């Protein structure tokens, strides 16, 4: 079954302001950014370095907070939450896919995937069953005992994706998920993300420099100097 995005805004940014202090001066990144993303969407965000892509992703992930404006995801006001509340919200509602996978090298693939489940009151047996299921979903059935160092970049990123979806979050944030991969591995990962969006209804926000990666998204937003300058929908 292929899902289509609900048209109701699910992620909403209104008049978001954000700046960084450099010495005594504050350098503005966003001076009133507006954005709406419906549930089930797959949005690629592109733009030159310094355009604010990472800052936007950090705010969506709740690891950074806006200086002003509102940031709402699924009814939760992230802009008014404290750090620990955002941390708890993140653990229950989103998964993050990192550019360099960020797997813990001393843990096996399965143990890495299990990490987000440790935050929830789930019995060990159930945790293992869920880990096996998602590893199978990302095409790594039977590879759970392998350590990351023995896996290719593409396989490691699949483990990263499995870790991001193991708690079945509604939202996936991907930061240059193919930035460290060769073309073939990158396409496999992007196909995986598309599958998660189309078949499982995950809302995905992906920051990327790669125009080819952006074609896998439903739409692409171009960010420049803290403003969206262009929106392109997938054919």
């Amino acid at each position, binding site marked *: 079954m292929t899902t289509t995005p609900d048209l109701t805004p699910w992620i909403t940014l209104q008049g978001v302001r954000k700046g960084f202090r450099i010495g005594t001066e504050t350098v503005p990144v966003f001076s009133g950014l507006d954005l709406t993303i419906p549930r089930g969407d797959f949005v690629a965000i592109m733009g030159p370095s310094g355009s604010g892509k990472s800052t936007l992703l950090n705010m969506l992930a709740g690891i950074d907070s806006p200086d002003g404006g509102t940031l709402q995801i699924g009814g939760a006001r992230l802009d008014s939450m404290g750090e620990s509340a955002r941390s708890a919200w993140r653990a229950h509602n989103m998964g*993050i896919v*990192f550019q360099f996978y960020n797997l813990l090298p001393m843990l096996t693939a399965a143990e890495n995937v299990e990490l987000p489940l440790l*935050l929830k009151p789930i019995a060990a047996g159930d945790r293992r069953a869920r880990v096996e299921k998602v590893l199978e979903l990302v095409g790594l059935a039977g590879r759970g005992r392998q350590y990351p160092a023995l896996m290719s970049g593409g396989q490691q990123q699949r483990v990263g994706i499995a870790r991001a979806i193991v708690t079945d979050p509604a939202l996936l944030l991907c930061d240059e998920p193919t930035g460290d991969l060769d073309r073939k591995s990158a396409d496999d990962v992007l196909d995986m993300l598309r599958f998660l969006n189309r078949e499982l209804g995950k809302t995905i926000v992906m920051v990327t420099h790669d125009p080819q990666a952006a074609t896998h998204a439903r739409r692409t937003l171009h960010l420049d100097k803290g403003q969206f300058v262009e929106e392109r929908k997938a054919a």
Partner: protein
Amino acid sequence: MSSLVRQFLVMMRANLAGLRRRMAISLSMMLSVALVVGVLAGFLSMAAGFEKVLTGTGSPLVAVVLGGGTNQETGSEISSEALRGIMALGGDIGAARDAAGHLIASREIVVTTEAAATSLALRGMDQAGPGLRDGVTLTDGRIFAPGMREIVVGETLARDIPAFALGRTVRLGTLDWTVVGLFSAGGSAFESEIWADLDTVRAAFDRQGEVQSLRLRLVDPAGIATLRQALDRITALPLTALPEPDLYAGQSGRTADLIRMFGWPLALLMAVGAAAGALNTMMSSVADRTVEIATLRAIGFGRVPTFLATWAEAAVLALAGVALGTGLSWLLFNGWQASTLGAGNTRIGFQLAVTPQVMLSAGLLGLVTGLLGGALPALAATRLPLTAALRARG
């Protein structure tokens, strides 16, 4: 198992697994903690060994009577009049008597003399003196004869100074003395003494008529109270009666405290340095694990397990240092023969004792050193910018 514990265990596992990457700096922290532990254990074992020798010396069935208001033999003087008064005391005075009804007593004097460039205690005593030392056995030779320049020497002294071997002649003061016997006293302070006939010692050192202490055999340990009451009846100089163990324990307290007074400040000073080293080690550990910590925090792991896991790593390294420090201290120091100056500035031989109490004190200082040094980096770990996780290569 709660989520907090699971988070802590995963982070702790990640920390410990990364120790191999940080081998050199982790070892340096361990060694600096071990050094602190070793230095403190060294001083404390010295104090403990010294105390053990002196507190293990003497019998509760022997009373030492001192004159002149002192509770040490040095500076004590019992006049002839007082001595006569004591010996004439009738009835039950708490002290034992021989078959003829005489008190079992030994008049004694301690003179400081030198041999082999060492300050030594030469004790002149009556013939009953050796019999008033419980736990002492003659291991070789015989007891000194009255009127002869003969000495009986403790085994510790004979072992440390070859001039006191059985049969040797040794110059004490201006005269030569012959070693006619060796005795053992279970390593107690007696073994650091030289015993000789009272009158011979007094004549050789121009101390005619002097008596510093009178040892009396008690009927039982409680006899000391009766003896004190009896001594109050003698109106000459004030007399003090002490159980023999109390006399030596009093000597040990001052010297042991002095050793500790040197040991603790030195160890604490080193601990400050080691804590700074621990802080440096743990800061580098946190820096090394920035991506891991930030990734876990980005996933949703809390600040508390982050703090505890980093702090626990410091504790583990400190404990390893403590184990190394106490282990080496025990191997190197325990039983090591040493000597110091006791009462009257005379030599007392003793063995360093790395007791459980010593290990506990030194170990706790080592652990506290690690924990203090690890606290700030643990706090720093909880304040790492999570944005580091998103773009860093792990």
